[in-house]
């Protein structure tokens, strides 16, 4: 064991010896000076300074943190310790969970279809550079708007309900997936595309015979990842914008009935759903690869 690591360290010692720097006290400096090291130090320093500044600038509204934390601890014990339904039935909750699931599926499908064509319009090897830049900036804009704002905006145009939720969630999904798909399309071997072009294949033939087959595994993995995100987003949107599903019941239990037991029951259902989704997604990803 020690012999092995010694022989591994031997060539390293020569390297270090040739560029050794010493401190004033005679100790050998072991850290290398690089540009990336400097940037890392600056980034860490700025982030820490911002954090310290943040804690001083917050408006705490005279809250007793110790009391609030201990209160949260007792509440958490009730929530996770004795979940019980009072205002809803189990079948009603399963239906609500199904609605949230369906909202996630619909927005992922819309997002994925839009993203497929969007990615073709902004991948470096399939699109004109000018078009690619226009699409990329537009997508960056769409991605920067938080999902909840999209949903609230569409609530005015389409009324409160599943339409606003699905279209609102789809916007951000499309933006996210366009970026992911475009990256996988750009990794397609340039030779394959060139060979097909030389043999006179049309654009769509190239897309479906070369690009889709070689990037479908990445695309599937990204789509499932996005579906997991969309599920939790559908939940959040249900709570914050009243868009229905189990998120809305969560909001009612927490902010309207003030029922910790019900909150706990719904939490357990959500966590179970999320864990099952993650397991299924991992399984599918493993099989696709």
């Amino acid at each position, binding site marked *: 064991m020690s012999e092995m690591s010694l022989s591994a360290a031997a060539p390293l010692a020569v390297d270090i010896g040739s560029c050794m720097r010493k401190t004033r006290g005679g100790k050998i400096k072991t850290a290398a000076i690089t540009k990336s090291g400097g940037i890392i130090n600056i980034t860490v320093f700025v982030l820490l300074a911002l954090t310290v500044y943040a804690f001083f600038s917050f408006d705490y509204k005279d809250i007793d943190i110790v009391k609030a934390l201990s*209160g949260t601890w007792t509440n958490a014990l009730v929530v996770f310790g004795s979940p019980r339904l009072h205002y809803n039935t189990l079948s009603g909750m399963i239906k609500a969970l199904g609605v949230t699931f369906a909202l996630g599926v619909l927005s992922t499908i819309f997002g994925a279809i839009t993203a497929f064509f969007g990615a073709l319009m902004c991948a470096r090897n399939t699109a004109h550079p000018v078009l690619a830049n226009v699409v990329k900036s537009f997508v960056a804009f769409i991605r920067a708007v*938080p999902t909840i704002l999209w949903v*609230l905006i569409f609530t005015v145009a389409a009324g409160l309900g599943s339409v606003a939720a699905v279209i609102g969630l789809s916007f951000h999904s499309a933006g996210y997936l366009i970026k992911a798909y475009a990256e996988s399309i750009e990794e397609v071997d340039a030779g394959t595309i060139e060979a097909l072009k030389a043999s006179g294949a049309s654009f769509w033939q190239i897309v479906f015979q070369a690009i889709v087959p070689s990037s479908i595994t990445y695309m599937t993995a990204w789509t499932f990842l996005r579906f997991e995100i969309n599920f939790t987003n559908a939940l959040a949107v249900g709570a*914050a914008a009243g868009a229905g599903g189990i998120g809305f019941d969560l909001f009612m239990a927490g902010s309207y009935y003030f029922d910790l037991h019900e909150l706990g029951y719904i939490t357990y259902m959500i966590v179970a759903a999320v864990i099952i989704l993650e397991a299924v997604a991992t399984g599918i990803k493993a099989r696709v690869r």
Partner: protein
Amino acid sequence: MISDKHMDKSKVSQDRSSVFVKRKRTFTLAFIIFFALFAISAAVAEYDVIGGFESIPKAVKWMSANFVPDEKAWSRLPKIFEKLSETALVSVAVTVCAATLAFFFSLLGTKTTRVNPWIGRIVRIIAAFFRNVPDVVWAMLLLFSFGQNMLTGFFALFFTTFGMLTRTFIETIDEVSSSCVEALRATGASYIQTVFHGIIPSSMPEIISWVLYMIETNIRSSTLIGVLTATGIGNLFDLYYKRMDYSSASLVVVSIVVLVIFIEMLSNKIRKVIM
């Protein structure tokens, strides 16, 4: 000899056709599954497909008419800026605190540095718990004792960020540092020395990259949590929105977009240098 070649050729062409047939079959199957999933989901969510498509041009029309910042909105810019910087600072502080804690916590969970396998397993389970309980649930729970305070959002985001980052840090450290830890151990370095001279320097670029990504995500999440807990920029948007002061609300959206894109560009620049 000739017949041999002939056979080879026919075999190749057969193989090729079977590849295409198989591909077509997979495409068709995937299409059917997609369509069935779509139909079932639309039925369950009571989603109006035609209404959904109709709503997009309607929304664009409505946005171009109402969602334009006017003079009144511009006069509210200082207020918007104040709330936006509050939200941005919360996301930075949350991410930095969660990352620091997650780093030391993840040391107990990695294969290279864990104290014993059982503690490692427990760490992973705790991380999975915090990751899988959505931030909305934490916000609802925290609202009971913290009320409509910015600390509600802080802790809600803290828990999920902590869970997320613990898992990614465990993966990063196992991937990046296992060889240098072995080398340091062989030279007789103590546990603390291994961490500070081996693990932190070798995994720092990855860690910074993840922290920057989480800051970006947390700005968006804290907007949502802000709607629920009546704090920050999310609350301001909700306020203008419910007052039907859409032009001010649009300025809020624009300011969030500018901030998020700025942070995205900055972190891409940093990533390019350090990775």
